[in-house]
């Protein structure tokens, strides 16, 4: 696998490709995708010999973020690809490209309610059938964070400036208190 060639392809498909410090974050590249490019991206990754490590969702504002993790059998190249679902909480499936995504998508549907359009059998997998609307991993309003708050912050600024969104008064004082303690 030629990483430069692959990176070029990523850049064509994605909005941003970021090199990540493996020693700190445990993966090599972060790729931000538009939601309609997900399938193209997956097909490209399969062609390059990547395998699907994981597929998960993170509940943030403005929309739920679906994270695809890929790695390669021959060289160390661990990639996190991210895409936001649309306002119908929908994103297209990659389970026909990576069959292993089938169960991960069903699980994500269980936990976050993300609908994978085109999935052959989007029934509850981990949860019971009657819990189809439970969506247990969705955050409550108070704990919900903006996507920028869970991104890696530049090291210099202190944590105070990041507390810009006001509509979560519970979470804020707690964080302040804990800082005072430590």
């Amino acid at each position, binding site marked *: 696998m030629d990483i430069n060639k692959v990176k070029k392809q990523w850049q064509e498909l994605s909005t941003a490709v970021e090199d990540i410090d493996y020693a700190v974050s445990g993966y090599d590249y972060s790729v931000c995708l538009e939601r309609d490019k997900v399938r193209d991206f997956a097909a490209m990754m399969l062609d390059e010999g990547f395998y*699907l490590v994981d597929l998960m969702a993170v509940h943030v504002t403005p929309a739920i973020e679906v994270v695809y993790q890929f790695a390669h059998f021959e060289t160390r190249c661990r990639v996190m690809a991210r895409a936001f679902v649309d306002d119908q909480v929908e994103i297209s499936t990659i389970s026909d490209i990576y069959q*292993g995504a089938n169960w991960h998508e069903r699980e994500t549907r269980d936990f976050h309610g993300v609908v994978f359009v085109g999935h052959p059998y989007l029934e509850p997998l981990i949860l019971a059938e009657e819990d189809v609307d439970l969506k247990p991993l969705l955050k409550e309003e108070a704990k919900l964070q903006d996507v920028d708050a869970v991104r890696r912050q530049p090291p210099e600024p202190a944590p105070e400036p990041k507390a810009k969104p006001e509509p979560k008064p519970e979470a804020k004082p707690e964080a302040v208190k804990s800082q005072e303690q430590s």
Partner: protein
Amino acid sequence: MSMDIEVLEDSRHHRYVLNMGPQHPSTHGVLRVLLELEGEYAMELLPVLGYGHRCHEKIAEFKPAKSFMPNTARMDYLGALIYNQGFAQLLEKAAGIEVPERVEYIRVMASELNRIQSHLLWYGAYLLDLGAFTPIMYAFDDREHILDILEDVTGSRLTYCYFRVGGVSKDIDDKFVTSTRAFIDRLRSRFPMYEDLVNGNVILQKRLIDVGELTPHICARYGITGPMLRGTGVAYDLRRAEPYSIYSEFDFEIPTETKGDCMASFLVRFREMEQSLRIIEQALDRLPEGPIMAAKVPKKLKIPAGDYNSSVEAPRGELSYYLVSDGSDVPYRLKVRTPSYSNLSVVPEMCQGMLLSDVVSAMGSLDLVIPEIDR
């Protein structure tokens, strides 16, 4: 008459559904597989999961990350220390904690012992699936020694919570060193017996060769890792591919086979035990003195905002923790990628058209741990 022929031609009329599990001797836990059978041939398979779901990922979002450590052991009760290792490593990376050298050696030894006992249990249980009753007792006889050794240092026998963020909870002593060395000699002397008694058996070979063949491409599509992948000829082991801890310092081989069938993964697992022994031996030789805890581990471990990944080689394949942090000490989101989950997902494709007996041997070769799948 023509009507009858039409009915006969519609092959689905020959089929019936066999509900294997959740309580079945060869599903190793609460896995349920719906089999659509035609005679004894399984035409469709549908694994049904979730009987052992304990909301580990949800729990993780409600308590400080440090105190999630015991939960990791409950996911894979056979590779508990390796799950500890992955999680400890994740938080150490995220919080920038330097781990003392002695700790790394202790962790490697304990993890490898854990891996051997997992493989030994698989060895016995798999052969039990194949109808050989005796090997499980031999394997447990050996496994018991590991449990005794680990019990002395960790305090528990199965769901260990031995590793801490920045160190381990208790130092190893001379007794650990001597009994581990004795165990290495013992297990080495037992391998020829296992090979004579089991691996060379014609019935076993007839049961395993050409059953459930996989290719590297199938593995990539399903995300299959671990011994099953190595059975297809891909020497992919995270201990070598993304050397974590101090694995890069040890001399060991990655056993591979080329055929990708049940026999291949059987042999790969068997040989891995020998390689783990080699790693332990080298670690014992070089074991340095020093502290067993990092100097500065804050009581309240704040994880800087961002996302972190930590992948380790569990006995069944790649284990990944993915943590999203918002800067507090409680994870914002923790996702655990467990190897058996991806490995099991290949079953509907792998076992299609197989005999019922082969379905059992193919599923046994996945080395399933159901709590790890359900989490």
